């Protein structure tokens, strides 16, 4: 199949996609008042930098978010730009990053553009680029790190690997899940080393030492350095591992901040159950004395990031196809893509604690890459004209579904015809799930 001219020169469509993605995210941000999390992220940032304390919200996660949020508050103040601006930027930059990484891993521009398109429109990515919590960091930093590792492998310039180490360090300092992608890229370097031309032992040793320094020592150093405000409380280095253990224990056993568990929290369902979603709610009263009695319909924004079923339900067949092609082509890059998807997802699927769907942002880049690859591979360049058009039709439909889900993501769900009433009723009568099952497993 001939690649369309816009695919041969993807700069313009990619720019258009990125700008469209930015627009969708800005509208999402402006469509609702700040969430409780937005406020608590800002307060936690001040709390950490001023007092060295983790929390009051999400104290168990690493602390980079606090530092970056504090910096943004200092630069731009506590308005939307200061509170959400950085996440908006990262969430938008993920679009060209998805493109670049997909292109490097699959070698195909149209697959790369398709992945970027799916990412740009996915409600989950839109919503978490427009909120202050740091899930979007876990898409951004690993993607940038992966790209830098490949730049290093392609150019042999050490600076790229140092940049990769720094980016993975920032990722791990956001949440530990960045370790999954780092582990895959360390594996890629190891495989290259084992398969590469035999060099003198000293040369290989020096290279291994450099790689370990860049991808292990440097990230750990950055991770440790982000705790500087905590050390300002008087703690010594010897006391730091105990803090890490307590953070780990909370993360391992975390069951949420409410008495019961609400929302989709089983990661094993993400690729098999349609309609998986993550919901945030913002109840907003008008400023000043209100004439009307507040109601859920008028005053509650129901921010519902629903997984685009055309993307998420396509993951398993697309992954199987990817693995098949990777095996047949003996392609290191395709194996890497599969490994990135599996390494990013499986830990959440098997861990015996609730994992809410907002964490899906971590997996989403590799989801869209795999699905975009699968759809173009399943309908190859040869065949009837109808078959050749299937990927474009699929992508068009996927975009339409994402756009149809967009009003839900920005909190307009209750006002929608057909579904608005049932969403409102569902919100009114939502029942939590008991935490007993997790607590029994964990104790």
């Amino acid at each position: 199949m001939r690649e369309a001219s816009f695919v041969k020169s993807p700069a313009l469509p990619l720019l258009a996609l990125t700008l469209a993605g930015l627009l969708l995210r800005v509208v999402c941000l402006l469509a609702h008042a700040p969430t409780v999390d937005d406020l608590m992220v800002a307060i936690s940032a001040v709390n950490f930098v001023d007092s060295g304390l983790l929390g009051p919200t999400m104290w168990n996660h690493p602390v980079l978010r606090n530092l970056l949020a504090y910096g943004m508050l200092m630069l731009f103040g506590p308005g939307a730009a200061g509170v959400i601006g950085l996440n908006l930027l990262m969430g938008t930059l993920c679009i060209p990053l998805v493109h670049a990484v997909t292109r490097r891993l699959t070698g195909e521009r149209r697959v790369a553009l398709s992945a970027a398109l799916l990412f740009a429109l996915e409600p989950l990515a839109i919503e978490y680029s427009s909120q202050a919590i740091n899930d979007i960091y876990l898409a951004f930093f690993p993607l940038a790190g992966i790209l830098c590792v490949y730049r290093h492998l392609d150019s042999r310039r050490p600076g790229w690997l140092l940049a990769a180490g720094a980016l993975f360090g920032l990722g791990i300092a956001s949440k530990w899940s960045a370790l999954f992608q780092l582990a895959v890229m360390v594996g890629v370097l190891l495989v290259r080393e084992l398969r590469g031309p035999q060099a003198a032992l000293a040369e290989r040793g020096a290279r291994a030492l450099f790689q370990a320094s860049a991808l292990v020592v440097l990230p750990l150093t950055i991770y440790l350095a982000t705790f500087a405000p905590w050390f300002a409380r008087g703690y010594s280095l010897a006391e730091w591992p105990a803090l890490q253990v307590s953070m780990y224990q909370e993360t391992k056993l975390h069951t949420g901040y409410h008495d019961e568990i609400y929302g989709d929290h089983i990661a094993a369902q993400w690729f098999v159950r349609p309609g998986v979603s993550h919901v945030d709610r913002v109840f907003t009263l008008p400023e000043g004395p209100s004439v009307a009695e507040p109601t859920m319909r008028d005053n509650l924004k129901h921010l519902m990031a629903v997984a685009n079923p055309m993307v998420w339900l396509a993951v398993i067949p697309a992954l199987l196809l990817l693995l098949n092609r990777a095996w047949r082509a003996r392609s290191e890059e395709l194996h890497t893509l599969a490994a990135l998807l599996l390494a990013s997802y499986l830990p959440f699927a098997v861990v015996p604690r609730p994992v809410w769907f907002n964490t899906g942002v971590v997996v989403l880049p590799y989801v869209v890459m795999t699905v975009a690859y699968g759809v173009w591979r399943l309908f190859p360049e040869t065949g009837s004209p109808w078959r050749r058009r299937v990927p474009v039709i699929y992508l068009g439909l996927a975009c339409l579904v994402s756009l149809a889900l967009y009003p839900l993501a920005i909190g307009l769900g209750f006002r929608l015809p057909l579904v608005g009433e049932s969403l409102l009723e569902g919100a009114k009568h939502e029942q939590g799930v008991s935490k007993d099952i997790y607590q029994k497993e964990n104790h």
Partner: protein
Amino acid sequence: MISCALLALALAVCVGLDRFGRSARRFGAVRAVGRDPIRPTLVALPEDAYRFWKRQGFHGRTILCLADSWDRLNLKEYAEEDDARRSYPLKVYRFADHFEEKFLDSRNFLYVAALQGIARKIVAVLSPAAFDLARDHAHHAKNARVDAQEVYETHEGFPRWFTTLGGLTPPGEPVLIYVSASMFRSARPEELLAALSRRGVRSDAVLLCSLAGDRTVSDTERRALGDFARLLERGAHEGS
């Protein structure tokens, strides 16, 4: 060469942070409890102890809290109703100051001391019965270590140890001592001083709290607190 630079950077960060942390601790004039004469500070209420520490500028310290029991806080009690009028620009505040201003009381003074950076860890010496309760609680906690003499349990990463007078281990650094009159429900003044002296406890601030107005504390216990103050002032304990 780059590897050496990165390793040197890692080492520098480790050493630098360690020194940075240790140098952030603020001490007063340190004396050995039971050996040197110490003039304790008498306070009526636990929150007065907090205010004293704050006034003195203590920071990054271990607080040795001696009390009959441990009042376990449920932070949900302090949750404020969301007024649902959030809009940009957000009203961002310093959480420690906010909590102190709105909620500081006799139950949460140690929590506020932790929030404000005065305490970086707490060692609570309790009666055997209260220690048993702490041990039971720790069995259900997410991050705790329990042995016969000591319970280690963190609160949102903040380290706390619970023990009894018999199980107290040497703190290894000068501590801020807080003694509640309730402590003398299960210990005698001489016994307490001897135990602290034997463990080589050193302190730059000993606060004795009479728990004024607390009907669970008897006059006998308050008198024992006074006796303990006199023993401290005398110093040179026999067991030292």
